[in-house]
Each structure stands twice: as C-alpha cells, then as structure tokens.
C-alpha cells in the first residue's frame, strides 16, 4: 500500500499522448520496446534474406537495393548484425519483457524511476532512427560489420558507407549505450528496493534473476563500449590516432600514426562478450519459468539455477579474448581465455541439466509457450556444443573466418534468444492483451520455425568445415566451393520458408490482440505474481493493494495442496514448503 502511494505518485494518465506515447507506465514502456524490436527484427530479417538470395544468385537485381556489389553485401551484413544484436536481442527480452513483468513479478507498482524509464525508451528509439538513417545518407550504411573493427571503421576514406553512415552508426550505438545504462540502473534499483513484502531474493522467479543479472552485465559492459565509441568518433573526426596505425589507403599515407586496432578489439569485446549473455540470459529465465509451469513441477535446482546465472554473468567478463585468437595474441593469453571460456560450459551444463530434470516425469502440457521453451533448450544445446570447439585456439584459427562461426552464434545467441522471445510472447500474451493467442497457428509457427532454423544453421557448420569463408559476398565462382552450391541453395530456400512462417506469427499476434478468445486471469495455472492480478493488469499493477508473498515461485504439484499449484500469494501453510 505504502509503495503504491509513493513510487506510483503519477496517477493513471488520461490523454492519448501521456497514456501511449510518453507514458510513465512500465507496462506501456515494455510494449513500446517490444514493438520497436518487432519492427527491427523484420528489418534485420529482410536484410538477411537479401544476403541469402545474393549468395546463390549473385547477379540478381534485388528489390529496394538493386544490384548487390561486394560493398552492398557488407553493408547488409553490418546492418543486419547491428540491428539484430542491439535492437532485437538486447531490446525485446530485457527491456521489453523485463520492463513489463519485472515490477509485476516482484510485486511493485512500477519501476523505481518511471521518468528515467520513459527517457530510456525514447533514447533507444532515437538510437534506432539514427541507425536506420545510415541507410539513406551519402555512401549508405557502413561496411565494417557489427563489430566495427578499426581501422576500417576509423577512416572516412576506407570505403563507401564509411563517411556519414559510419558516424551515424557509432552515434546510434553510443546513444543506445546511454539508454541501456539508464535501463540497467532502473532494473537494479527496482529489484533491490521494490520487492513486495515476503518476496525475498530467493523467492523471485528465475526470470527476475535473469533480468537482474543481465542489468548488472549491461551496467558494466555498456560504459566500456561507450568509451570505445567516443575514441572511434574522435579518430574519425578529430584526427586522433587511438586505433589507427600508420596506414595507406588507396596509395595515400594517412595522417594517423601509432594507434592500435587491437585496442578497439579489446574494448569492443570486453563489451561484446557480456552482450552475448545480455541477449541469452533473459531467454534462460523465460525458459525456466515456462518449463516449470507447463511441466507442472518445481524448477529442478532453483538455487543452482540462480548461481549458474551468476556464474555465467561473472565468467562472461573474463573470456572476451576468445574472439581475438586470430589477432596474434600471446599463446599464454589465448590459453587463459580458452580455459575460462570452456569453464562457462559448467554453469551452462548445470542449467541444461536442470531444465531436463524439470521435464523429467513432469505432467507436460504441450502448449505453444512450452514448445518454444523446449525449442530454446534444444537450440541452446545444439548451438552451445560448438562453443568448446571454437574456444580452443587451435581449432578457432582454421574455423574463425568460415561459416562455422555464424552457424554457432546464430543457433545459440540468435535463434535460441528469439525462441526465448517467442516463448515469452505466447506465455505472457494473455496477461498483456487480455486475450489468448491461437494455439493451432502457434504450433504451426513453432514447427516450421524449429525445422527451418535447424535447416538454415546446421548445414552452415559443414560449410564452415568445408572452408566456405564468411563475409564473402560471392563465392560461386570459386572452384573449391562449387560442390557447396546445392547446400547453400537449400539454406536459402529454408530461409524463405522460415521467414514466411514469421508472418504467421505476426498475423496471430495482431489477430489475437483483437479477436482472440478472452483470457482468464491465470490461463496457464501459474504461480507467480503477474497471474494474481487482473488481465490486463491495472495501472498500478495490483489495483490499490500490495501483494504479500508467502511462497517460492515454482510450487507445483505440492503434496497436500488443494490444487496442483500454490500461488506465491496463497496463505502460508498451504504447502509443506
């Protein structure tokens, strides 16, 4: 009650602008993030399709972009990667669902700093607009990849797109960093200070743990990327030489001297590797939540799950060098980074084991959210297993610049995280919009997407081992890759089908928003706090009262309880817990 009166000092707004545009309500802001990511994911997907088409039909003139020159291909690749990593994988699982459900799941009426929350969304929006603007300026989008390696990214004359386009790219990412830092600050303070009575840290759902640890990772990582980006901007525009060594471009010696391209790589990957976990940890949280709910079993090893998330977050800061085995680093450093990287396999295996333990002997309800959560585990394993290969310098060096690496990171970071987003969407849709999504279309979407993504990314491992380089716009003329053309053609067709299936999802999403059957307050018979409030939740989340928590988050099939689940707010003593 007290928290309601205080944090939620802003009353429910009436006007359209204050209610839906510049809203202070974490639920509206969460949806804003979600829809921003939805737009971004379709842009990113379209770019990837153009790349796939160009790979097998290099001469084709494509819609919107026309003829694809090698630099056009690199621009598509850069923007695909950047948009997907920043504006989809960082935005939807953490900022989108986290914003919507973290306060509700811990029993708070809003985030700790609602105004900052609004600012953080609109800053992200500005970053997205700046990023898209890079397409439309002279020279077009940059071609330095989402990793922005210097000196390519640090010299205006390095190529088309490296003029204003690259500046916009860097500024967009810097703005995004600031937005993410504001978001992280809000998540951390909210988790630490606004939990309802009885909601101890170890009674938080694993989703909240994942969002909390992700926020800490973001807080520590984005500041470093911001400083790296500032140095890059100075190199490009004020003639400094942080990253640019003595370099000759088009026969001309540049004025720069003495900088270190490796410095950029270190700073970038110090951010870049934790960023991988920023993308996947919320998905792990959602998978845990959904698996437990739909297996009607408590999550197997709750505390082990929490410590595993912490361990992954901690180790995530010690392994950035494994992205740089090719840079000629000392074998001793490479060895250290390699060992640390393989150590991440331990908490990851704990999580996988616990997910399987949760499923074991469960009374599983195979509904769409559950299918996507199982799909998440499957993809996490498939993508994760190639990790220990790449973690070893001796294997990474031949594989690094081949299709093997895109195969690895798309499965584990791209598609697995996307499956986490899908699981979260199907799971929380009834709470967010008050209606159910169509189950049949959901299943069709799941099976096509699962088969499709495996068809796209599994063969890429073989392409990589057969020596197909990554980042090459054209390889069909290379004799030693001729026999791979059929496999590449197969991948492109699989991409077509998988992308087509996403329109099923899009249709299901919007159709169900307006026409789906009305949802009850707790359609999945789940236990956490969001299911105790009305659907959709009122402005202050719990309609004027503050929940009091008496139970852990996953009390399913409790012996002696009247139902097969015990809500977190049920009176104490219902279960033996």
């Amino acid at each position: 009650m007290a928290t309601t009166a205080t944090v939620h000092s802003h009353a429910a707004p009436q006007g359209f602008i204050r209610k839906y545009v510049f809203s202070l309500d974490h639920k509206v802001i969460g949806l804003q993030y979600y829809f921003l990511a939805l737009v971004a994911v379709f842009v990113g997907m379209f770019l990837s399709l153009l790349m796939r088409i160009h790979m097998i039909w290099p001469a084709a003139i494509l819609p919107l972009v026309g003829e694809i020159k090698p630099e056009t291909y690199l621009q598509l690749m850069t923007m695909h990667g950047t948009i997907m990593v920043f504006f989809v994988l960082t935005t939807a699982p953490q900022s989108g669902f986290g914003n919507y459900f973290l306060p509700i799941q811990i029993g708070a009426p809003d985030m700790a700093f609602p105004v900052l929350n609004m600012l953080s969304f609109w800053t992200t929006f500005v970053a997205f607009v700046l990023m898209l603007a890079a397409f439309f300026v002279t020279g077009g989008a940059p071609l330095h990849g989402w990793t922005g390696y210097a000196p390519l990214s640090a010299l205006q004359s390095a190529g088309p797109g490296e003029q204003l386009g690259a500046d916009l790219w860097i500024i967009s990412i810097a703005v995004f960093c600031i937005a993410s830092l504001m978001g992280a600050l809000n998540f951390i303070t909210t988790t630490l200070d606004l939990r309802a009575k009885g909601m101890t840290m170890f009674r938080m759902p694993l989703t909240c743990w994942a969002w909390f640890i992700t926020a800490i990772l973001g807080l520590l990582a984005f500041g470093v990327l911001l400083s790296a980006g500032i140095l890059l901007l100075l190199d490009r525009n004020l003639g400094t030489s942080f990253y640019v060594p003595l370099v000759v471009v088009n026969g001309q010696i540049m004025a720069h001297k003495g900088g270190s391209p490796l410095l950029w790589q270190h700073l970038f990957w110090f951010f870049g590797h934790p960023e991988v976990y920023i993308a996947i940890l919320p998905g792990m949280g959602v998978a845990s939540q959904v698996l437990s709910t739909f297996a009607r079993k408590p999550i197997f090893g709750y505390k082990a799950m929490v410590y595993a998330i912490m361990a992954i977050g901690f180790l995530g800061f010690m392994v950035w060098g494994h992205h740089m085995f090719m840079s000629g680093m000392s074998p001793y450093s490479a060895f250290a980074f390699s060992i640390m990287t393989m150590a991440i396999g331990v908490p990851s295996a704990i999580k996988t084991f616990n997910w399987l333990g949760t499923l074991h002997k469960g009374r599983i309800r195979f509904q769409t959210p559950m299918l996507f959560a199982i799909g998440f585990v499957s993809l996490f394993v498939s993508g994760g297993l190639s990790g220990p290969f790449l973690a070893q310098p001796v294997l990474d060096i031949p594989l690094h610049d081949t299709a093997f690496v895109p195969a690895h990171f798309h499965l584990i970071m791209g598609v697995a995280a996307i499956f986490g987003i899908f699981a979260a969407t199907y799971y929380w849709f009834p709470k967010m919009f008050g209606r159910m999504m169509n189950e049949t279309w959901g299943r069709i979407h799941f099976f096509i997407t699962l088969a499709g993504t495996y068809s796209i990314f599994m063969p890429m491992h073989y392409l990589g081992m057969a020596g197909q380089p990554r980042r090459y716009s054209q390889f069909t003329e290379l004799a030693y890759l001729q026999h791979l053309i059929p496999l590449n053609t197969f991948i492109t067709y699989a991409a077509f089908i998988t992308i087509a299936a996403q329109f099923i999802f899009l249709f299901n999403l919007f159709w169900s928003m307006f026409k789906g059957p009305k949802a009850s307050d707790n359609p999945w018979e789940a236990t956490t706090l969001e299911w105790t409030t009305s659907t959709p939740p009122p402005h202050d989340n719990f309609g004027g009262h503050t929940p009091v928590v008496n139970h852990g988050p996953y009390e399913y099939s409790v012996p002696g309880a009247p139902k097969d689940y015990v809500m977190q707010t049920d009176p104490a003593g219902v279960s033996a817990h």
Partner: protein
Amino acid sequence: MMSLTPTIPVKDPELGHGGSGAHPPVADGGGDGGRDNGSPDYGGRLRRARLGIITALVAIVMVFVGLTSAYVVRRGLPSLDEKTSTYVRDWIPVNLPTGLLLVNTLLLLVSSITAELARRQITRQAALAPVESIPGVSIGYERNFPWLGTTVVLGLGFLTGQWMAWRELADRGFYMATNASSSFVYLLTAAHAVHLAGGMLALLYAAMTSLLKRPVEARRIVIDITVWYWHFMALLWIYIFGLLEFMR
C-alpha cells in the same frame, strides 16, 4: 543515516503461522516515514535515489575504466616509423600546467565541502519541517547560507581553470591530435568536465526547486544525491590528475 541495502523485512516462511492469510502488520524498511497519513514516502524515495546514484556511478566508473585501459595500453605501445621502418616509442609525455591544476583541484575540493554543507543544511531543514508545520511552533530564524550557490560558483571556477589549462597546453603546441598523450589529456579532462557540468545542472535544478516551493523532503533528495555525485566527481578528478601527472 538511511541504510543503503534493501531492508524489506521478511517473515520466515518456515515460521509462518498456519493459515495466517490476513495481512500481517506492515513493517517497512529503513525509515519510511509518513506512510499512513497518505503523504509520499520520502524515506523510501531517498533510499532508492541513493541506490540509483550509486548504480549510475558504477556505470561512470566503467566508462573511465575503459578510457584508462586505453590510456595504459596506448602508452606502452610502440609505433612504426615510416622513415626507418623500425618500431619507435612515439609517446610524448605532456607536461601539465601543474600549478594551475593544483589550484583547480583545491577549488573542487572546497566545492565538495560547500556541497556537503548544503546537504547537511537541507537534511536539517527536512528533519525540522514536521515540527515547523505545527501551528504556533517556531524554531526561530535560521541563517541559511547559500551553500548550493557557492558550490556552483566554485564548480564554474574549476571549469574555467580547466579551460585555462587547455589554453596553456595549446599555447605550448599540444592539441587534441598532436600526440596520443595529448589526445588522452584532452579526452580525460573533457570527459570529466562534461560529467561535472551535468552535476552543476543538477545543482541548479536543486536550487530552482527551492524557488518553486517544492516540499523540503523532495528538494532534500535531489540535493542529497547530487552532492554524492559531486563528491564522486572530486574523487574522479583527483584520480585523473594523478593518472596524467604520474603516468605521463
């Protein structure tokens, strides 16, 4: 002093009295006052604001950790000389205008003290506000020295001094792009100046809230966390000064 850790007391589930579905008595964390009479919970807000500012400071620390590591790496890095085709050390140590910077440091430290006095002043006012609101009770006229204004003036003095230091470096031929060392001098001092300017805006905002007749408790929160931030800026400056002076 408020506690910074989350202090939500929790009933041990093991000891839960069977079937006590009724709401247990509400006990809340560190000094949340004024909950029952409907007035805003300033204690909770202050605690959250402090937690927030500490978190923000961690983010700022990471920005400067990034810059420092770049500094250390670049400083130790040889560079290829195109004339001799050999690797040479091209780092030219910058002789800072140390005297001027010491004066600036002193200004900033004094401003930290005045900021702290402003913080204590408003804390006292906030504590006395409920007493003063009782009709007929007066605790007498208290002289309110404009500590906030003094802090802003001292901050401006510091920034002016930094600008003079830049001019002096430029006079000696050290510009942003002259050498990696001078790039870092400008970069680090400018990054600090931008953060300090942000703190001054916050102080001005805090001063404005007193004109806008905002409740003293709300003003106290703004001033409290801005002053924490200000102290941090002083520490950060000493760190940067030390780095540039002793690791040139």
